[in-house]
């Protein structure tokens, strides 16, 4: 049984297609993050799961039951919003029990739930305050509390941390993680922040233009991006995508960057090509993350190359250095203790066990 299943879901506002044939499944207890740039349809998808937005095509199942036409209140979900959406005229207690009261829950049960949740979230002493008397973090906590008291099957979070300042955001992120570890309730979480997505999700679904680009564990998304969009979107700075061609020589395949004579041999024992394709002269992007370009040789297979350093950005514990690789910019990440001389060639080592290759025309991983 899947806790949540979305089947061939399409949604359009007028003539704009917001979601195109979305298919998604979540197992019990998973934490799914919908990640994507603004306007990619992730919030619309969440609103559809909640029942706040109608569907044009497709179905939504909760516990294998088709809820496509079920009212939000009867879907057994709870939602936490970016603006917290606490009812301004009610105090914290009234805010938290409003839903239970609507559902005609018995007084004893309401009291019991309220006590349990307010102790758990440590909002016990705030119960008589109005939302306007709370700090941002406290409001967020109450909003989560309001969702918790309903004991939903699925928690929906719509960018819950983006209104908080940087420090509080990290704190609340950890609390949400802890919350999930304790309660083990299924969560669908929308964000545009990749750090949030990586640290919270057991699964991440990356969306762009209303299409899911990749849906997998954070590790796979990071190490084996499906296409150049995912490769570019995840990681800071993002993956280097070097333009060039594949060259096949008997059963050795190597990469030659545009305008360069150096050929990088692809380690066939280490790189699994997804598809059987014609390799020779194929135009591709050679993807390598900045942290996999080393200053010293660390691995026997490392590819050595001499490149000129153009720019160094110091960011505390590390530095990001821009190199020129036959007129393509390449970023590398080093510890900030290393002294780099500008405008001078130096030896670099590409760790070839962490590369990704993408077809230039389809932008898909090969």
């Amino acid at each position: 049984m899947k806790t949540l299943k979305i089947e061939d879901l399409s949604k359009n506002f007028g003539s704009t297609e917001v979601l195109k044939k979305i298919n998604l499944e979540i197992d019990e207890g998973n934490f799914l993050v919908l990640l994507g740039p603004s306007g990619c349809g992730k919030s619309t998808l969440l609103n559809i799961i909640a029942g706040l937005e109608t569907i044009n095509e497709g179905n939504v199942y909760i516990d294998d039951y088709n809820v496509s036409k079920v009212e939000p209140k009867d879907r057994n979900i709870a939602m936490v919003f970016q603006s917290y959406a606490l009812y301004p005229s009610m105090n914290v207690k009234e805010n938290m029990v409003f839903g239970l009261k609507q559902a005609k829950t018995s007084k004893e049960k309401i009291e019991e739930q309220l006590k349990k949740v307010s102790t758990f979230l440590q909002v016990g002493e705030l119960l008589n305050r109005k939302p306007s008397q709370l700090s941002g973090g406290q409001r967020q906590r109450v909003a989560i509390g309001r969702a918790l008291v309903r004991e939903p099957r699925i928690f929906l979070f719509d960018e819950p941390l983006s209104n908080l300042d940087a420090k509080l955001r990290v704190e609340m992120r950890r609390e949400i993680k802890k919350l999930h570890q304790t309660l083990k309730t299924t969560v669908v979480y929308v964000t545009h922040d990749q750090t949030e997505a990586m640290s919270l999700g057991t699964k991440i679904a990356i969306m762009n233009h209303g299409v899911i680009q990749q849906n997998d564990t954070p590790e796979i998304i990071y190490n084996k991006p499906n296409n150049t969009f995912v490769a570019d979107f995840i990681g800071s700075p993002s993956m280097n995508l070097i333009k060039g061609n594949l060259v096949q020589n008997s059963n050795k395949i190597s990469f030659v960057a545009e305008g360069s004579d150096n050929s990088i041999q692809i380690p066939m024992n280490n790189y699994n090509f997804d598809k059987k394709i014609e390799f020779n002269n194929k135009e591709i992007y050679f993807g390598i993350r900045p942290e996999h370009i080393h200053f010293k040789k660390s691995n026997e297979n490392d590819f050595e190359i001499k490149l000129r350093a153009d720019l160094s950005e110091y960011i505390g514990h590390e530095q990001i250095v821009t190199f020129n690789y036959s007129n393509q910019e390449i970023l590398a990440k080093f510890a900030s203790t290393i002294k780099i001389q500008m405008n001078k060639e130096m030896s670099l080592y590409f760790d070839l066990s962490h590369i990704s290759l993408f077809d230039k025309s389809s932008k898909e991983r090969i």
Partner: protein
Amino acid sequence: MSVNAIASYKQLEQQSKVKNLILRWFLYFILILFASYFIFPLYVMIVTSFKTMEEIRQGTLLTLPGELNFKSWAVAWGGRGYGAGDTFLRPYFWNSIKMVVPAVVVSTFIGAMTGYVLTKWRFKGDSWIFLFLLFGCFIPFQAILLPMARTLGFLGISNSILGLVVVHIVYGIPFTTLFFRNYYVSIPNELIKAARIDGAGFFKIFFKILLPISAPIIVVTVIWQFTQIWNDFLFGATFSFGKAAPIQVALNNMVLSSTSVKEYNVDMASAIIAGIPTLIVYVLAGKYFIRGLTSGAVKG
């Protein structure tokens, strides 16, 4: 810093102090001038209403009455006591109250409801409806007199207070809707979504979530509508006569129909009586009025 520089700074400081002082006094002078220009008519009205006719004839506009004489107020409010042709304000004052209270309450409520729907339950073509409602704000009074007279006749409520109530409700809806729509548009839609997930329906969300935070805009709307309806003369004069007339019409009849001598003291007292209710509303709700006009989003 050299001694010279300090001296020149001191001189500059002195100069700017003098300049500021002169400007400030000039500012007060202008303000007082304008304030008196506006207060002067009120002063004349109040002073005149307490004078006897003898005093009015002998003194100037500005002279104070010899003693506080409430007689003209009594006449304005309750009449002289003889039967025919005695016009006084009391019955018409109550007419106006009976007209203004339901008209304000109903038009404010409908405006709130419409504003709520237009912002929180958007539907296809809703912005067109809002646009047409806005046109309602710009239709001149005169343009609707004839159609409205026909309508009231058709409904069988012409020349009645109920008829006036209906006219004012209909004419007020564009304004009240505009106020509430602009207020609710700044309230985050997530609030409505949260309430829907919590299981609240259309009316529950309106009464439990939105209305309790609408106090500022309710005050603005009530003041606006009260002033408009209470001070209206044209609709009153057109759609009612005789016993059903509101106070502004009665005031007009009273002042214009005095025979032989013009009783300025009674006229002034009547005019003040007719204006008092709006003053009371302003004084009671004035500070909310400013706050409501300037308040944007309700955060929280």
